[in-house]
């Protein structure tokens, strides 16, 4: 087991190196020049040159790459160019709000989607099944931007069910007051695709031999679904949920902007607008590493769920 984990971690290195190269090429080589925005509105060429020297972007590319690699190895990405805040502090403080929305959202979304998908799989082929599937498709066809604009206007402002926007200092306040509407929107947007996907996972399993065997043994249909099918379908579901989690951190940016949640997604967009390369590079590398680690965790979870899976 340990040997397996070590080998998997070792195998991540080339991928991570690829990510680092990609990020470096994109931002250090072809990306914009931040010196002009840092120089303010009355700049002169001498000042621009001075800023470029202070940032180290006047160095040859191989030197810049070497510095970047050293930064990654030491987990020290330096400081944001526009605020002077260290990148580690940026990540540490923005992660909390993002997770406050993301974790309950993912848990609720997965549980609800599994429940509904099983129910729909149970009545597969019926009119209900079709109607639910079409409703999901319609729901998915509307842009998240529209959901946010309309929900914020009607549910929060017109009906006063939620705060219009905001973020507090206390975890529970944030979780139950301020995150409620963002989570609701997240659920509306994500349950439909999840439901559709999980339904196909279940249908895949329902057609397997072991289900037929179980039925012939006289097991009740709900028991077959809830125990046997669910257990086997859990593997693709776990993979899907786990591997999606890190990219969701960034993907939440629309919700974070509209509801003034100081999370990672909003920070990334802000950093792109400000050409704040240290922040973008660090977040990209961290999220890429997190994606790989979560994929590994998903594989390890497989085994916990289904001991037949051999870790190679």
């Amino acid at each position, binding site marked *: 087991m340990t040997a397996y984990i070590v080998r998997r971690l070792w195998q991540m290195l080339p991928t991570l190196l690829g990510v680092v190269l990609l990020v470096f090429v994109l931002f250090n080589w072809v990306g914009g020049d*931040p010196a002009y925005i840092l*120089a*303010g509105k009355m*700049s002169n*060429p001498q000042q621009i040159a001075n800023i470029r020297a*202070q940032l180290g972007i006047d160095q040859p590319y191989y030197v810049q790459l070497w510095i970047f690699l050293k930064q990654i190895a030491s987990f020290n990405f330096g400081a944001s160019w526009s605020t002077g805040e260290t990148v580690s502090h940026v990540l540490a403080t923005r992660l909390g709000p993002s997770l406050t929305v993301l974790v309950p959202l993912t848990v609720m979304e997965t549980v609800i989607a599994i429940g509904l998908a099983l129910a729909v799989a149970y009545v597969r082929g019926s009119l209900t099944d079709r109607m639910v599937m079409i409703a999901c498709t319609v729901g998915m066809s509307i842009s998240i931007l529209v959901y946010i604009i309309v929900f914020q206007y009607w549910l929060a402002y017109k009906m006063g069910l939620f705060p219009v926007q905001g973020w507090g200092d206390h975890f529970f306040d944030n979780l139950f007051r301020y995150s409620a509407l963002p989570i609701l929107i997240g659920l509306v947007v994500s349950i439909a695709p999840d439901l559709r996907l999980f339904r196909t996972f279940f249908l895949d399993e329902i057609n397997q031999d072991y289900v037929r065997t179980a039925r012939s043994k006289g097991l009740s249909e709900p028991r077959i679904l809830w125990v046997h099918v669910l257990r086997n379908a859990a593997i693709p579901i776990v993979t899907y949920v786990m591997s999606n989690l890190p990219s969701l951190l960034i993907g939440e940016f629309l919700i974070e902007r509209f*509801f*003034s949640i100081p999370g990672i997604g909003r920070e990334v967009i*802000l950093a792109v607008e400000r050409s704040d390369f240290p922040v973008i590079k660090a977040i990209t590398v961290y999220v890429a590493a997190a994606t790989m680690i979560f994929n590994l965790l998903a594989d390890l979870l497989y085994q916990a769920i289904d001991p037949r899976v051999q870790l190679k």
Partner: protein
Amino acid sequence: MRRFNWLLALVCAGFLSLAPWPAAHAADPDKVLHYAFVAPETGFDPAVTRDLYSAEVIQSIFETLYTYDYLARPAKLVPQTAVALPEITDGGKTYTIHLKRGIYFSPDPAFGGKPRELTMADYVYSFERLLDPKLASPHSWLFEGKVVGFDEAAARARETGHFDYDAPIPGFELVDRYTLRIHLKHPDYNLGMILAHEPTSAVAREVIEKYRDASGQVMAHPVGTGAYLLSKWVRGSRIVLTANPGYRGFIWNFKAGSDPGDRAIVAAMRGKRMPQIGKVDIRIMVEDQSRWLAFLDRQIDLLELEGPLAPKALVDGHLRPELAAKGIRLSRIIDPEISYYYWNMQDPVVGGLSPAKIALRRAIAMAYDVQEEINVVWNGEAVPLQYPIPPGVVGYDPDYVSSVHYHPRLANALLDRYGYRRGADGYRTLPDGKPLTITYTARTDSNGTQESEMWKKTFDSIGIRMASNLMQFPDILKAEKECHLQMRTSPWIADYPDGDNFMQLFYGPNIHQNNNGCTEIPAYDRRYEASQRLPDGPERDRLYHQMARILEVDAPILIGYARYRNMLAQPDVIGYKKHPILHCEWLYFDMTKPKRDRSSTP
């Protein structure tokens, strides 16, 4: 023993100012102003920060030598930590400034537990930071080329890599602890306004040296002498300022100006000990819809009404009756800014001073309907300008009439006359028959898109092919400073309210700095140089008038508009008036004490 002396000085200072130090604190902690920033702050080092929202916080914490009168319009310079306006002698080349005694920095561990008085040396240190190459301050232009020996010190620092703060600079003569004499290289009558600009605020050297990062900046630990302290900061989300208990305070005594609303403000505020507001709670709300709904929900007391939201609150520049009925009030000013459209004078297609090129630019200028842009893009929230200097700025001339008018038929006729012939597809070519396409650059946001659409329409109306180029702001800045853009709408807001700040935009030697259109017209440059040697007055105005006419006949630019700034205040806010230059006014107005829990109000 030493400690005793300090205390004695403190007590004396307290008596001198007729308000004993600890009791100076009049602010009521229950009076909380809820405010929203449109964009996230960056940090609070006066020398480095360059965004508007951080500047609002900096102005609350730090103090400059001069500031502006709260009510007087156009903005009037008044002393802040200085005793009086500067004594200008030697034909505008020597400034003598006296500092008030008994002003203290707010306590900080950097001071070793002792009260720390503000002296003129702190100001000199703060000015020197602006030219320290290590800091790469965006505000270095405030002093560049002005003070005797200062640029030389900066040049030495660039060579050695280290700015020597201990070496005296001849131009900054410290007569005593509280007196500074500044010696200038050239006559300059605007230095007083420069010394009211918040990058020249006083910071304490101990604080900087204790908290600075690798590049020498202190973004997260502001220690000043001003009325407020930074008591809570969640980056990009929330900033809480509380009244500084050690602040010396002042009695509200501003004179009403010509504005009819001023009398009510004076009646409500006169004689109050300031500041009154005990806490300013600032949230960052990026999206328009979120901010507007939060204001209606009374989560915000004072709202900056951005363009797209204006029709929701205003009709013809007046507050909607249903909002007025709720007791909401509007404070509306024209920003001291101009937005102008430039053509790159170095560009082979649109640039140059030959008659055919001038005719091309003038035709485009005549075909553009500035008023329509104001109506459609800015929801009517701007005024068209005639003159390069906007209202509220020294040198503005309300009687000046531009010779450029919207006249698309004449524009077409002019192009025909100069040989820009229409081809089979309806688009014109250059007089030599080569294809003619003009690229208009704008930002990627919705305003940029709409401006591009306006120009597309305009160019179509005179048969010129336009390419639209939407770019991220940093990329625009870079291309613009390198004179690579063909045409753009360029906004400029006053750093200090004097016409010079606007006229310098088109001065040849400022190319690659802020002469964005890379304009170089000898007749203009000669007059600009002459104007710099003059104080404000009819003589300088005459030069400015000629320069404005040069901009019209040679058409390197078309003057556009200045936007309104609209602030909406909830009924709780007392005596509020938007100031054109000051970033934040919470030092000067008051609020009623809250009677109920605001978070539960519908």
